[in-house]
C-alpha cells in the first residue's frame, strides 16, 4: 500500500485480523488481561452508585478512545511488530473500553427514572468519545 499523506484518514478497520494464528491469540489475550485489569481497577476506585452518573465508565471509554486514536495514527507512521495491533487495538484498548457497561448503566438509569442523567451520560459519552478519539488522532499526527 502506498504511504498516505498525513492529512488523509487512515483505514477504518484497524487491520483485518487473521483468524487462526496462535500468535494472535497470545497477543489479544495478553492485551485483554491488561485492559480488563485496568478497567476493573478503575471500577474499584470509581464504582457507580445506583442512580448516579457513571463517571468511572465514562473516564474509561473516553481515555481508551483517545489512546486508540493516538495509537492507530502512530502505527501508520512507524513500523510495528505484527502482534502490535492485536495486542493494543483489539486486546488492551478494546477490552479496556466497553459498550456493554455503558448500555447497562443507561438502562439502569432509565429503569430507575433518571432519564435526565441517562441523556447526559449518553451525550457526554458520544460527543466526548468522538472528540477524544479525534484529538488522539490529531496529536498522533502532530507530535513526533
Amino acid at each position, binding site marked *: 500500500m502506498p504511504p498516505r499523506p498525513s492529512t488523509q484518514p487512515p483505514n477504518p478497520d484497524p487491520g483485518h485480523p487473521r483468524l487462526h494464528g496462535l500468535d494472535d491469540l497470545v497477543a489479544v489475550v495478553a492485551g485483554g488481561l491488561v485492559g480488563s485489569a485496568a478497567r476493573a481497577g478503575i471500577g474499584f476506585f470509581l464504582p457507580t452508585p445506583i442512580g448516579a452518573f457513571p463517571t468511572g465508565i465514562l473516564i474509561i471509554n473516553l481515555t481508551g478512545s483517545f489512546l486508540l486514536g493516538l495509537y492507530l495514527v502512530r502505527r501508520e507512521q512507524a513500523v510495528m511488530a505484527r502482534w502490535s495491533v492485536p495486542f493494543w487495538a483489539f486486546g488492551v484498548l478494546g477490552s479496556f*473500553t466497553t459498550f*456493554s457497561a455503558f448500555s447497562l448503566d443507561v438502562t439502569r438509569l432509565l429503569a430507575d427514572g433518571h432519564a435526565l442523567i441517562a441523556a447526559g451520560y449518553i451525550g457526554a459519552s458520544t460527543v466526548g468519545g468522538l472528540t477524544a478519539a479525534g484529538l488522539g488522532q490529531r496529536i498522533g499526527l502532530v507530535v513526533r
Partner: protein
Amino acid sequence: MTFLVTVATGAVGAYCRYLVSGAIQSRSHSDFPLGTLSANLGGALLIGLVAGASDLQSTSTLAAVGFLGGFTTYSTWMIETIRLGMPYLRVRAVINLMVTLILGIGLTVAGYSLTT
C-alpha cells in the same frame, strides 16, 4: 476474587470479539464496521438478559459481566465512526453512531425487561 474473575473473563471476551468481529467483517465485503457493530449489539442484548436475571454479586454473573466487558468495545466504535466520517462518508458515520447507540441501548433494555 472479583478482580481476578473480571480480568480473566475479560481477556477471553477480547479474543472472542477478535474472532467474531474479524469473521463478520471479512465476510461483509464492505468497509462499514459490521464486525464491531455485531459484537457490541450481541453484547448489549446479553448484558441486559444477565443483569435483569440476577443479582450482580454472584460469581457466575460476575464472570458473564466481565466477559461481556471484554467482548464489547467502545474505543473501536468511536474510531471507526470518525473514520467513516472522513472525508466524504458522513452519512455512514452518523448511521454507525446512531444504529449502535439506539439498537444497542434498545437491546439492553429489551433483555433487561425480559428477565427482570
